[in-house]
């Protein structure tokens, strides 16, 4: 057991009837990180989230929460924003937020103070006595977000937190998520399909598919791994001559013309050739304009990983 982990799953499985929702998944969520949980629909993300949120338990394996076996006593230090969330229609905004705050174990005074603060921060002042039925979708989303974080949870589960927000409010919520981690050290488990928010928010990610974990690690190292030594080179000169001169030393992955005899190529270098040596050679061949490590989006990282898994399955 590692003290620096907020949450650890050991070989967790869950089945519903004959359907295996999770199959021997192990995960480690570092304390104070924003951990992206990714995967296609039906991969088992919701099942995993529900287990962490304390809604269901695993059939097999165990879950540890800040070094202790997960139990019902942890609910007050946990925040949960489910996907496709809603609010009670027959309650007013303030009273509803108070209800959830008290369910999480907050006192009345404390909850009220925090609410006023959050209403201020997300610019929803004056909504206290609003009927929920009068709220727009975006407004309701903000209230739901506040309800999930109000009690300053140590561990926060956000399922698609940015869906339904306009770009301005999405960036505001994104800033709040970052602030929760930076100011309060909150660990955040973030499930999403939106890769751009993974790129912007997450420190760590895990990818699950068909109930199995197929990838896990810090975003930077996953990117580095997916880059697989590829570099992007822009130069002025003869593309055909350059390619011929490359020989067996490096692999040409992509090439595009930038006009005016300028070209943009992506090359895969074998580990035996250090980048300095390659650059020395290249400048002797062509007029090199720039040379950078190939940037890999998380989209590519996951497409690549999912394809790799399905390839091994089919072969």
């Amino acid at each position, binding site marked *: 057991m590692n003290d620096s982990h907020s949450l650890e799953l050991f070989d967790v499985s869950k089945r519903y009837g004959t359907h295996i929702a999770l199959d021997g998944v192990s995960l480690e969520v570092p304390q104070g990180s924003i951990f992206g949980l990714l995967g296609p629909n039906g991969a088992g993300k919701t099942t995993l989230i529900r287990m962490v949120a304390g809604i*269901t338990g695993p059939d097999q394996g165990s879950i540890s929460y800040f070094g202790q076996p997960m139990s019902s006593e942890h609910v007050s230090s946990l925040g949960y924003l*489910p996907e496709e969330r809603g*609010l009670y229609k027959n*309650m007013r905004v303030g009273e509803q937020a108070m209800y959830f705050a008290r369910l999480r174990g907050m006192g009345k005074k404390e909850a009220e103070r925090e609410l006023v603060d959050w209403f201020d921060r997300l610019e929803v002042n004056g909504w206290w006595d609003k009927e929920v039925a009068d709220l727009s979708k975006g407004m309701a989303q903000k209230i739901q977000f506040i309800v999930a974080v109000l009690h300053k949870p140590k561990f926060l589960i956000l399922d698609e937190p940015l869906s339904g927000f306009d770009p301005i409010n999405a960036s505001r919520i994104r800033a709040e998520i970052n602030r929760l981690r930076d100011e309060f050290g909150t660990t955040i488990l973030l499930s999403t399909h939106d890769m751009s928010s993974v790129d912007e928010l997450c420190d760590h990610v895990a990818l699950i598919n068909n109930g199995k974990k197929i990838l896990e690690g810090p975003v930077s190292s996953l990117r580095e791994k997916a880059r697989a030594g590829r570099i992007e080179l822009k130069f002025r000169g003869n593309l055909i001559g350059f390619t011929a001169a490359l020989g067996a030393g490096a692999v040409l992955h992509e090439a595009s013309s930038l006009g005016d005899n300028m070209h943009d190529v992506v090359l895969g270098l074998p580990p035996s050739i250090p980048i300095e040596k390659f650059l020395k050679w290249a400048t002797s061949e062509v007029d090199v304009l720039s040379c950078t490590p190939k940037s890999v989006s998380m989209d590519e990282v996951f497409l690549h990983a999912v394809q790799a898994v399905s390839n091994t399955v089919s072969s």
Partner: protein
Amino acid sequence: MNRWLIVLGREYKTRVRKRAFIISTLLGPLLMVGVIAAIVFIGLSSTEMNSKVLIVDHNKILTYSMPGEGDILLPSCPECFPERRFLEYRFSSNALDTESFLESEFTAMVELDDGIMQSAKALLKYESAAPMKVQSAVKRDLGEAIERLRVKSESTLDYDTYKKLKVRIGLVTQNIVTEDRNVENKSAIGFVFSVFMFMFIMIYGMHVMRGVIEEKSNRIVEVVISVVKPEHLMGAKIVGIGLVGLTQIAVWSLLSWLLFLGFGVYAETSGMLIDLMGEQGSQVASTDFMTFIQSNEKLGVLLQVNWGMMLGWCAFFYLAGFALYASLFAAIGAAVEQESDAQYLLMPAMIPLMFSYVVNVFIIESPDSMLATFCSFFPFTSPITMMVKLSVGVPWWHVAISAIVLILTVLLMVKLAGKIYRTGILMYGKKPSLREMARWLMYKNS
């Protein structure tokens, strides 16, 4: 504060402060009393109309001629034909023919023939049927006049002495075992209780189902059950909403009682009571409302019912019956995603409730029949049937069995419903079949 209580508090508070609840709770008894008052008022006002009745006495049995006035007769016994607000008599020795009767001011014409002293029958002719009140007044008045005549001709007693000797028998029915009296009228009161029981179980059971569906369809349930166990959430919801119903029952009972007392005071002070007594020919001359109720053949039963016992058992059977059906409805709500999908599951669940409501009509006729006994033991019908049985009196062990069977069934049902609820509440995207729901019962706790 216990989380369970926080949930319960929300379920209760958000409902009792709703405008619709407040209005129906406050206006319910007023509306009921209003309807009853309207019926009484319409009944009274139809006799407000002045009826003129012509008594045709060919042989002057009950009348004598006014000297020098030929056709016009006067009753030999004027006190037998008193002046009434709604009835006036005229006497004549000749009947009117149809045409002149239709043109006349008379509502009815009664022809006495020679045989009336023996047959005690007379013919009442009318164009449009005379009100019941008028008919019974005519019957009573004629009867007394003839009685007077008979007494005079056949006994040495004077009429007033005879009147004192005369006895009128009223039957008070009594069950030999339970010693309960006036079962027929009391069972009507039990019937009213059972109608309310049906109504409350139905209305608040639906509240539970709708509440469950709301929480499921907007995913609030996920947030709540990450804090409270699903079974506890279901329990808090059922108890919270059950208490809303109980609140309404309590307020209705209290308001009805106050209205009853208020009406009594009004009746006493406004002189309405004296009018009422006069009209029903009551022998008891009292201006006390309770005495009036007690002496009234129909209303007297109101004071013979043990209201404390009835209301106490009503509360018990309501809570237990409600818990039984509400947990069933909660399980149904958890299995579906919207109300319209619940119909096919609701039907079988509601059949016993409907059944007990419908057979009640037979049960008030014979509260001791086999059907009644079965229905009062069977837990899905007992809350409703028992109301009728309790009102007419039922052995204590009978109530005990019914209550115990009901409580055990409630415990079992809550457990089973909790299992279906726990699984259903997190299941989206498909309408489960009954077989699938049965399979959920096998899932282990997690």
